[in-house]
């Protein structure tokens, strides 16, 4: 695809006769454009992609930008697209990739590139601010006496699955709703934040009803459950089956199910509304993701 534009760099210790090598085809560039550059290195046993990228930094390209932290699959910083698949560099072993051809590493496609393999993921942090926060019920007298809330293990297990999330945003990256349709970002929370809402919906203490908000403002109905988020999740969270579909079913309870509606009327179960949920959202922003009108470039105070 970009073979004709790549420039092989081999001055990094590779090239001794007969030595096995790997070719890393890394995206180099920034907001003004970029290209793939090939780096040839000696093959070393037992490495993950991030190790090889670090060797490129240390020997061939000290200014190669890549974001990483724990290198143990626990922080979710080193998200990129390896051979076209959204993956964590620290969790992708070199011996799982074909080495007879160049291994491409490109930045996540859904977010604007900052430089090389690093993208501006502030969209996700903006969405996070618009999730109505945890809203616990008051403690009972017994709980005040015991010193803490009482919750049964079976009641917390479902939400615990979503709290495994390391916020690598690979699910946000792979979701075609925003990957292929930039305009949807203004009204779409994405799989990571559907999982967050599911976590709160299923949290035994949380008292906010988020269903209307999810449907009306956060684009739950834009999700067509093609399950790519589940496929790429490094924590193996069943985002689609355990978060998104249960949320869709809860929305059906709230809006599309006359039987459930009647049941609620009879049982006089009063639940909050979207407006109520929105009211508990942080004061500095509306509950929905706002459409941007005029700003271009990289958002956020941190990018001034």
């Amino acid at each position, binding site marked *: 695809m970009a073979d004709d534009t790549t420039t092989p760099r081999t001055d990094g210790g590779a090239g001794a006769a007969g030595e096995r090598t790997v070719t890393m085809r890394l995206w180099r560039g920034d907001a003004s454009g970029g290209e793939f550059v090939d780096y040839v290195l000696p093959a070393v046993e037992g490495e993950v992609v991030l190790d090889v990228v670090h060797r490129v930094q240390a020997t061939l390209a000290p200014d190669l930008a890549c974001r990483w932290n724990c290198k143990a699959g626990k922080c979710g910083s080193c998200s990129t697209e390896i051979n076209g698949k959204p993956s964590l560099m620290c969790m992708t072993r070199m011996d799982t990739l074909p080495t007879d051809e160049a291994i491409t590493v490109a930045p996540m496609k859904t977010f604007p590139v900052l430089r090389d393999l690093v993208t501006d993921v502030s969209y996700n942090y903006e969405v996070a601010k618009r999730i109505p926060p945890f809203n616990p019920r008051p403690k009972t007298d017994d709980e005040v006496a015991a010193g803490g809330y009482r919750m049964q293990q079976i009641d917390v297990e479902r939400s615990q699955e979503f709290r495994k999330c390391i916020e690598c945003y690979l699910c946000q990256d792979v979701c075609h709703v925003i990957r292929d349709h930039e305009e949807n970002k203004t009204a779409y929370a994405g799989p990571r934040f559907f999982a967050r809402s599911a976590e709160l919906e299923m949290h035994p203490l949380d008292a906010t009803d988020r269903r209307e908000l999810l449907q009306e403002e956060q684009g739950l109905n834009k999700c067509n459950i093609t399950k790519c988020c589940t*496929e790429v999740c490094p924590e193996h969270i069943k985002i689609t089956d355990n978060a998104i579909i249960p949320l869709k079913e809860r929305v059906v309870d709230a809006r599309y199910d006359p039987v459930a509606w009647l049941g609620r009327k009879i049982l006089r179960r009063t639940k909050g509304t979207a407006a109520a949920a929105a009211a508990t959202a942080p004061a500095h922003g509306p509950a929905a993701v706002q459409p941007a009108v005029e700003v271009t470039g990289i958002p956020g105070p941190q990018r001034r």
Partner: protein
Amino acid sequence: MTTLEDVSTTPVVLGGVRGGPPVPTLRKDRWWVQPIVTVVVLTAFVAYATWAAFVNKDYYAGATMHRDLISPFYSPCLTESCVPGSHPGTIITWWQISPALLILIFPLGFRLTCYYYRKAYYRAFWWAPPACAVADAHGSYKGESRFPLILQNIHRYFFFAGLIFNVLLTIDAVMAFRQPGVGIGFSVGTAVLCVNACLLWLYSLSCHACRHLCGGGLKKFSEHPIRHRIWKALTPLNAHHMVFAWMSLVFVALTDVYVRLVASGAIHDYGFHF
């Protein structure tokens, strides 16, 4: 000089330059295999089902063969045109064409709105997206937020209808142990109908709407121990919903094929009786 008061929540900003080359995908694996298989199998099924529904014959192997085998496509057979013995009695008199068409609406609706099949056909037929990290084929995209796709939300009603059919097809399978004029027996056809009914039950019980209605919708399981137990039993089934979806789809067609072959006299339904 700025102070924090100047820094309010910034709106989500569209645009920005994306990295990577402007190509639909960088994937090197054979990502197109899965959608092709889906297209082939689903198309073949729809084509066969359409033909089998309109052909309106050879769907019942009855007393003349000492059998009581009815194709799932034609059960329950409720119209005037039904083959004698194949139905509990004529209930619908105004329907003049194949009775299968009246029946197939329900399983079709169930499968069309099924969370798994939605994934399969959105990917394979609609290319939204064809595979993960492969560009989708549409200029704009609104998902299931508008008519007609908003109707996907009625999945649970098709689920209820599906349950009724499961009961009826289970009765058919039990009836298939009868060998009229001979007694009680067992044949390949009996086995086929039994397996078919089992697979349909597995498909229905592993349904996401079923899992939600049985317990998934609860906030606190500890207050509903029985529903929690049901939910817990359904959860591993749900994890294999895709497998049951394909198996039951293929097998229901095979069941129709088998009954058709027996009813038309092309093959003999081997079996024994007591």
